[in-house]
């Protein structure tokens, strides 16, 4: 290796010189190194045959990853190996900590070593599949930099998982809570409205018989939504309802974009006895909040059918049961947070319908 730019043919093994970004230079058997397309090209371009003209490797390759890559190449460039052997080697090879694995992926990519990129990507994918976001962030040290708002913003409900829908609803309520907190620190948040989609639907169906009011209501809802949810890019089927209540009162009915009306709607329901108290509370809040002027006459008719109420109750129970059986802790937290503020058992949303709200203990009740 004393003559530059000449590879002595009589040598048993040719060596290639590689230089990493930190400046260190090392010597590698040519047959191993040319397994990397990048190095192969450089050799064809005349580089790497001597110490003075080493092949400069891309910045993403540091000495540690280079050594790993060369191990990989050294094994796989031998033609006689069986598939089983190769697979077994691969499985052992990728056992390293996550950080190193990511570095390795990056380095292999810059050297255009596709089989290794595939192998490492698959390993990384396995670390992501089936895990919760927290677990994934933990594994990869991903900073949790979505704002509370963004996180609470419904995930476009891609998966249509009823749990995610509920989560979205709860998040939406939470977000609403946060907003209110900001706006009015002095005002005690009292009665909250129940986000009651299935009931909304029922009511709009009922109201549909008075063709008018339904349309009016929907249009107003849309206005509200647009203003409120400027961050959301689509009109998701599960929209962030501005009602804040954490009771799992919603059944499994699909709602088709009819969002429940915000809390400042005047309540006109006459269904249950203790409503009047809430009404007063809400009315007073309305004055303060007055977010949406045009929503006045939400005249929704005569209240709820006892049958429907029963159905609602059933749905609530059913949902709560499911909720509690496999719900992540976080949501439990959320629920218990929200529960603390419930003054009364019943709450009413703007549409004037009521749902039985459960508090923390109520949840357990439902369970049983």
């Amino acid at each position: 290796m004393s003559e530059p730019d000449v590879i002595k043919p009589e040598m048993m093994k040719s060596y290639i010189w590689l230089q990493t970004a930190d400046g260190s230079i090392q010597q590698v058997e040519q047959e191993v190194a040319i397994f990397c397309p990048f190095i192969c090209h450089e050799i064809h371009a005349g580089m790497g045959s001597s110490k003075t003209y080493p092949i400069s490797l891309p910045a993403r390759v540091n000495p540690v990853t280079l050594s790993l890559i060369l191990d990989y190449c050294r094994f796989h460039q031998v033609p006689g190996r069986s598939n089983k052997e190769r697979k077994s080697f691969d499985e052992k090879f990728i056992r390293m900590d996550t950080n190193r694995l990511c570095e390795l992926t990056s380095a292999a990519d810059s050297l255009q070593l596709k089989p290794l990129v595939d192998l490492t990507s698959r390993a990384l994918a396995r670390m992501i599949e089936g895990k919760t976001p927290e677990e994934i962030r933990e594994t990869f040290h991903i900073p949790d930099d979505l704002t509370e708002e963004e996180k609470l913003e419904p995930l476009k409900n891609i998966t249509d998982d009823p749990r995610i829908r509920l989560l979205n609803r709860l998040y939406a309520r939470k977000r609403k809570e946060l907003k209110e907190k900001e706006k009015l620190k002095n005002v005690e948040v009292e009665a909250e409205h129940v986000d009651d989609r299935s009931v909304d639907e029922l009511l709009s169906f009922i109201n549909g018989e008075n063709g008018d009011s339904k349309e009016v209501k929907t249009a107003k809802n849309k206005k509200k939504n647009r203003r409120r949810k400027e961050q959301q890019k689509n009109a998701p089927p599960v929209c962030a309802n501005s009602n804040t209540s954490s009771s799992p009162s919603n059944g499994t009915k699909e709602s088709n974009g009819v969002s429940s009306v915000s809390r400042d709607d005047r309540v006109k329901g006459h269904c249950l006895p203790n409503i009047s108290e809430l009404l007063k509370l809400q009315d007073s809040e309305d004055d303060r909040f007055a977010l949406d002027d045009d929503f006045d006459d939400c005249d929704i008719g005569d209240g709820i059918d006892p049958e429907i109420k029963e159905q609602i109750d059933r749905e609530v129970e059913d949902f709560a049961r499911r909720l509690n059986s496999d719900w992540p802790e976080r949501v439990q937290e959320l629920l218990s947070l929200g529960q603390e503020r419930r003054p009364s058992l019943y709450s009413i949303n703007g549409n004037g319908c009521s749902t039985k709200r459960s508090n923390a203990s109520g949840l357990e009740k439902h369970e049983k």
Partner: protein
Amino acid sequence: MDTNLVSREDYITDLPESIIETILTKLPLRDAVRTSVLSSKWRYTWTTLTELRFDDDCCISDAHHRALPETGLVKFVNQFLLLHNGPITRFTLSSEYLERCPYVDQWLLFLSRKDVQELSFGLAETEWFKAPSCLFSCKKLIALELVRCELDPPLHFKGFPNLKRLNLQQISIAPDAVETLISSCTLLESLTLSYFEGAKLTVRAPNLTYLMLEGYFKDICLENTPMLVVVSIAMYMAEAYQSSSCNFDKVLGGVPSIQRLTGHSYFAKYMSIGNTLGKIQPTYRQLKIIDLYQVSFDDMTEIMVILRLILSAPNLQTIQIEGSSWSTDPLDLDFWDKECPRDATFAQLKVVKLTQISGLPHEMRFIEFLLGNSPALEVMDVTKNVYETDEDEDMFMEILAFERASDDVEFMFAEDQV
């Protein structure tokens, strides 16, 4: 730790986009979408995925869930496609529950505008999906796979100009339409038709290298397939079909580059029909593997087919035959002396594997012929059908006693309880 590789501590987010996409592509679509809550940089990473695979796992089918499973999938796909941003190169939809619905047609329309290159559709078994005409305007298609479809190419359809792989399974299509479809896709390299119910099929595909046909065919003709390398045919014939021309020529007359031939069911029978019209029989210099099933050694004509095949393949390496013979009649045994050239040599033949052999006279002659003329033979693997009444091992003893041209033959004998 090199700070130029990671930003703060985050290992993965700053990897090159192509790697992130590779990783996301290796995840089920649900998990890929869920990465949007990881951090602000991950929010929309999944929306640029170019390879999409939708199946019944995409949405949790909940026992309590009032909606039907397929509704969930429809919603998922709709929402996903609305949020998706960028080209889509590969799209797979595979569902056992989803029946045809207007949305499926719309998705195809959407995809046809996205220059999709690989498309695979397989819906529920209940109703076959009638492919809308926008399917035929996916000009960039390289690979197309359809299951349980009705295909009705429009009159102005001139083929998929870039199509290389076509896989049609349980397709309902007019016979000449399928022939036209095949011949108009001039770049076609791989063709698979399964569960096909057609009458005659003539394949004209100048670039075709891989062919697999399976179904009820009355007639198969490989008219213009000079590049074919692998041929696999499973023919279910209702009754014997008398052909005026030679089926062997029709199927194998124009495939000089063939390397692997597989024939199931009635294939050998079909090939045996018709007489060669005295044309010069091609030599299959590349033919290395012959794999035939349900060959009846009772039928002289079928044996002739096999003989013709192996005698015109000087570089044959592997023969695998599953027998289906019954007759213990030792008639026509002199056929072997007549038809088998004594100087035949299978110079490259290394492996012979025979299954469902009953030790019948013709089978034994065939084994004897092979053993005696294969100087490079390494493995002779014979599996015998054993009926309850059978006890003797004569067959194997007899085989061992045959004259062998190769000294290194390893005999593998096994018995299959029938």
